[in-house]
């Protein structure tokens, strides 16, 4: 319980800090309230939803694929979203943001299903192949997207979605993320099912689970949350990979018990990266994806080389 309290406490402090950091000094300005409501608060909320959502997506994806080293942003789902956005821009440029997002989710789902289909053909004795194939699969789709974007002169346009950052988040421009928040929350109720899926098809069917349906639900959750994040703030790789692994080390693998930790730690990581990105090159900003690329990889290397404590 004490652990839970400290996790929530530090998360709360980070949120407060995120509200306070910025170019406009809140204590000096008379329009402080307006700044807070139209810019700081939406930004902080967007950061929290993104961090928690991506971390949980990573955990679900790892359960579905039964491998610790995959995450949606590097295994084709993120690139699938970019593909969807590109196709919509090319063929239905007048579509509303909501339609764009819906179509991007569909392509993200298709690419995720494709990834799962490939993974199932891989031998279970070779766990390293899964992340490797995922990265190459994502790379192929990414290269395809770049190819089309190059021909259509849309490379710069696409760049906005390829690099995640929160500087564009204002009131009225991030609300789609609330759908991601709802979807992520709903997925919590299926946590036990995902944990069973992780035991494999035979074990799941034995336990009376509709295996294919749960896998499909998981993929839909992952695709919707990923594509909403990419459409609103852009790609932020590695959160889905690093956070579930840390939580698994600290608190074990009971998904229903650990999902709240995954959400809180994921949100905290992105909060820290976003605050650092705003402070380090003040008054300019460094994209959160870049900052987290450094933090996330260092943490991951530490995870990889620090001996795992058993029974913790």
């Amino acid at each position, binding site marked *: 319980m004490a652990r839970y309290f400290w996790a929530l406490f530090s998360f709360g402090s980070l949120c407060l800090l995120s509200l306070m950091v910025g170019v406009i000094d809140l204590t000096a300005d008379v329009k402080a309230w307006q700044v807070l409501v139209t810019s700081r608060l939406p930004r902080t909320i967007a950061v929290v939803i993104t961090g928690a959502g991506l971390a949980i997506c990573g955990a679900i994806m790892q359960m579905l694929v039964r491998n610790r080293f995959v995450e949606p942003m590097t295994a084709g789902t993120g690139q699938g979203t970019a593909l969807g956005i590109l196709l919509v821009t090319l063929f239905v440029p007048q579509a509303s943001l909501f339609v764009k997002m819906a179509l991007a989710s569909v392509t993200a789902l298709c690419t995720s299903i494709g990834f799962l289909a490939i993974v199932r053909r*891989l031998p279970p004795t070779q766990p*390293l*192949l899964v*992340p490797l194939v995922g990265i*190459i699969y994502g790379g192929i789709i990414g*290269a395809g997207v770049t190819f089309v974007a*190059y021909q259509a002169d849309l490379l710069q346009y696409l760049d906005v979605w390829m690099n995640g950052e929160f500087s564009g988040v204002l009131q009225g421009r991030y609300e789609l993320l609330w759908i991601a928040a709802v979807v992520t929350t709903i997925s919590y109720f299926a946590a036990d099912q995902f944990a069973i899926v992780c035991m494999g098809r035979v074990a799941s069917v034995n336990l009376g689970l509709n295996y294919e349906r749960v896998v499909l639900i998981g993929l839909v959750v992952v695709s919707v949350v990923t594509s909403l994040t990419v459409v609103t703030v852009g790609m932020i790789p590695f959160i889905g990979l690093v956070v579930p692994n840390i939580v698994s080390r600290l608190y074990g693998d009971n998904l229903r018990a650990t999902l709240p930790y995954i959400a809180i730690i994921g949100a905290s990581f992105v909060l820290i990266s976003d605050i650092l990105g705003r402070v380090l090159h003040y008054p*300019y900003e460094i994209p959160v994806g870049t900052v987290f690329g450094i933090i996330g990889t260092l943490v991951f290397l530490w995870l*990889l080389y620090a001996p795992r404590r058993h029974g913790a």
Partner: protein
Amino acid sequence: MARNRLLTLGVALVLCMLGYMTLGAQGGWGFILPFRGAKLAALLLVSLAIPTSTVLFQTITQNRILTPAIMGFDALYVLVVTTLVFTLGGQEYVRLPAMGQFALHVILLMIASFLLFGTLLGQMRQDVVRMILTGIIFGVLFRSITSFLQRMIDPNEYAMIQVSSYARFSRIETELPLIGAALTAVSMIFAWRMRHRLDVLELGHDVAINLGETPRRITLQALVIVAALVSVSTALVGPIVFLGLLVVSLAHLLVPAARHAVLVPCSILICGITLVGGQAVLERVLGLSTPLSVVIDLLGGVVFLALLLRRMAK
């Protein structure tokens, strides 16, 4: 059999070179030949550097999936260049002669790769999963630090780094090939002299020791050559992730179980055909504006995935 295949590949490469030099030529040959010739020379240099470094790297790591590009060597090179500009400042950096700049890059890359990979490669045989992941993560880390530093750098100075940060084959630095050619030539001579020792190393760590080879020493020597060759290729055309993997996998298919004396030339020829032929087709025949590196990453990825899945299905 291997000899015939090498000959066929050689003929194909010559045809590609002819096509590259002559297709769609308009205007005086006095202009076209030196203009295209310089670019062709650079492409051929890269075709020497990338496959050789990839084969050496795969032999010392005893693994056919890892390549220097996947392990983040290219990214490390870009990081070294960026760090130099960041710490020295653009003015100081420009004052160095091109030769000095490049020498500095190569030396720094060698030191950095020694520090990072020299210690890691020793653990390779114990845990391949960890090693591959470490490499991929290093690549991401280098790219993130690079883009972090690039954000902090003055935009004017950024233009200097931009050249080496993106892969391109159509617009190649013209000053570098001479220095690059010299460095490549030296590296290739050393690599060629190592070919039998590399064959021994490929038999495995314990067998190599039994046969009187010191795996640690040859690993470090090979690492120096890899660092030099990666510097040349990245400085000339920028990072291309899948090229080395693609051409060496194809070479393994064409000349299975070959020694280094056959495998290396074979991958070099395949790489030359891919780059020169690909560039000729893309630029002159299809008239596409997309860089070849994107197409290579696309095709290389697909081929690699297909190879992997087919091998697993057996």
